[in-house]
C-alpha cells in the first residue's frame, strides 16, 4: 500500500506491506535508525516516537495506520536551540551523561519531550513514573533523572516563562 505521512516536518510517500510496522518503515525505508527495536511487543520503549505529538510504540503501530499523520523521531528533534544545534532535551542528556550505550536514549528523549510539553516542571515522582516505561539496562537511571531536571530548566529558560502550553505537541520539535 502506498502511504503518505509527515515525518520530522517533511512529507514522505512510501510503499509498505500491510503488516510493516511503523518502526520498520522508519528504519528500513526512511533510514531513521534512531528508532531502536528492542522487544517488538511494547515493553521496552526503545521504539518510542511521537505521533501527532503523543508518544507511541512504533513497534505496535502499522505504517499504514500512520498515513496522514505527523511522526517525530529523535532525528527530527534538533532545532538549533541547544548546544551544537541540538534540542534542549538532547543537550541535557549529553551534559548530564544521561546515557551509556545509547540504545534506550531516543525513546527516553522523546518521552521526556512529551512530558515537558505537558508539564514544564514535573515532580521527581512524576518523572520516575513517566520514564518507567523506557527500559535502560546501563545507567541505573540516576543520570537520566538529572538530565530530565536539567532539560526542564533549559526548556523553561528558553520559553522565558514558567508555563508552556498544556499538551503542546508543537512545542516538542
Amino acid at each position, binding site marked *: 500500500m502506498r502511504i503518505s505521512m509527515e515525518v520530522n516536518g517533511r512529507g514522505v510517500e512510501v510503499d509498505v506491506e500491510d503488516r510493516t510496522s511503523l518502526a520498520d518503515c522508519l528504519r528500513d525505508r526512511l533510514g531513521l535508525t534512531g528508532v531502536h527495536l528492542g522487544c517488538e511487543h*511494547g515493553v521496552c520503549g526503545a521504539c518510542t516516537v511521537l505521533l501527532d505529538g503523543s508518544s507511541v510504540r512504533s513497534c505496535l503501530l502499522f505504517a499504514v495506520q500512520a498515513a496522514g499523520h505527523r511522526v517525530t523521531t529523535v532525528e527530527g528533534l534538533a532545532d538549533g536551540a541547544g548546544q551544537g544545534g541540538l534540542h534542549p532535551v538532547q543537550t541535557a542528556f549529553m551534559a548530564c551523561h544521561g546515557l551509556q550505550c545509547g540504545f534506550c536514549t531516543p525513546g527516553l528523549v522523546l518521552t521526556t519531550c512529551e512530558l515537558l510539553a505537558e508539564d514544564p516542571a514535573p515532580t521527581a515522582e512524576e518523572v520516575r513514573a513517566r520514564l518507567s516505561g523506557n527500559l535502560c539496562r546501563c545507567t541505573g537511571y540516576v543520570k537520566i533523572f538529572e538530565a530530565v531536571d536539567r532539560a526542564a530548566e533549559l526548556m523553561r529558560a528558553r520559553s522565558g516563562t514558567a508555563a508552556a502550553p498544556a499538551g503542546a505537541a508543537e512545542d516538542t520539535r
Partner: protein
Amino acid sequence: MKAPRFEYRAATSVAHATELLAEYDGDAKVLAGGQSLVPLLNFRLSNPAALVDINGLGELGGHRLGADELHVGAVCRHREIERDPQIAARCPAIADAVAQIGHVAIRNRGTVVGSIAHADPAAEWPGLAMLLDAQFTARAVQGERTIAAGAFFDGFLSTVLDPTEVITAVTFPLPPVASGSAWIEFARRHGDFALVGVGAVIECADESITSARIVVTGVSDTPVRVAAAERVLHGAQPGEALFAEAGRVVATQVDPISDIHGDATYRRRLAQVLTRRALAVAADRAA
C-alpha cells in the same frame, strides 16, 4: 518478531466494519489501539486473515460523563479518561485504575473497549466493568445487542462476543454521588499488569453501610465479584476491623493459580490485604 501477513482493511463506518467482519466470516479481527493485538501478532499467537481498523471512525471516539453514567466510545483511549478530572472527581475508582495501565505511550493508543474485548483477567477495565455493572453495545450486520458485563467474560481472554461483532461503546453506570470508590492493585514493577487488583464501592447512611461491591482481578480466569464479602459489609458500621473481616472472607472465596509471577498463597494473601485497603479508601471517600 514481526506480524504475519494479513490484509489491512480500514473501516469507513460502523456498518462497513460489520460488513468487513462478515466478509471474512470470523477470520478477521478488529484493530483498535493494537496494544494487545499487535504483540499477539508479533509473537505469532494470532494469525487472522484481515485486520479491520476502526481507528478512523470519528463516530466511535470520545466519552461523555452524564449525571449517573459514563459513556465511552470504542476508540476512546485510556489516556483520554485519565486526563478528565471530572471522572476522577465523580468516580475515583476509575481514575485510580486507569493510571495504572501500562505506561503513557500504551495509554495514548490503547482503548477502554479494546481492553474489555481482550478480557485479560488481570486488566483494569474488565474489573471496573464488573464493579460498575457496565453494559456493552455490540453490532453485527444482523443488528445490535446489549451485553451486561456479568454475562460477557467467559474465560481466560475469552468473551461471549462473536468474531463478526464489533463493540461500539460501553456504558458504566456510576454509583451515587455520596458513595465512595477505590481501585488498589499490586504489581512487581511500575506499569506491569497487576498480580492482583481490588475495586470497591461503598455507600453509607446513618453510620452504617447500605451497599457495598467488591471485585477482584488476577485471581481467576475472569474478574470476580465477591458477594459473600459484600454481605459481611451490608448494614454494618464501617471500620478497620470490619474491612479486615471482609478481606478474610475474600481470601476464602478466591481460588487463584500459581505462576512464575506469584504463587496461589501469595495471591490470596494479596486479595485479602488489598480488599481491606480498598474498602478503607472507598469508605474514606464516601460522603
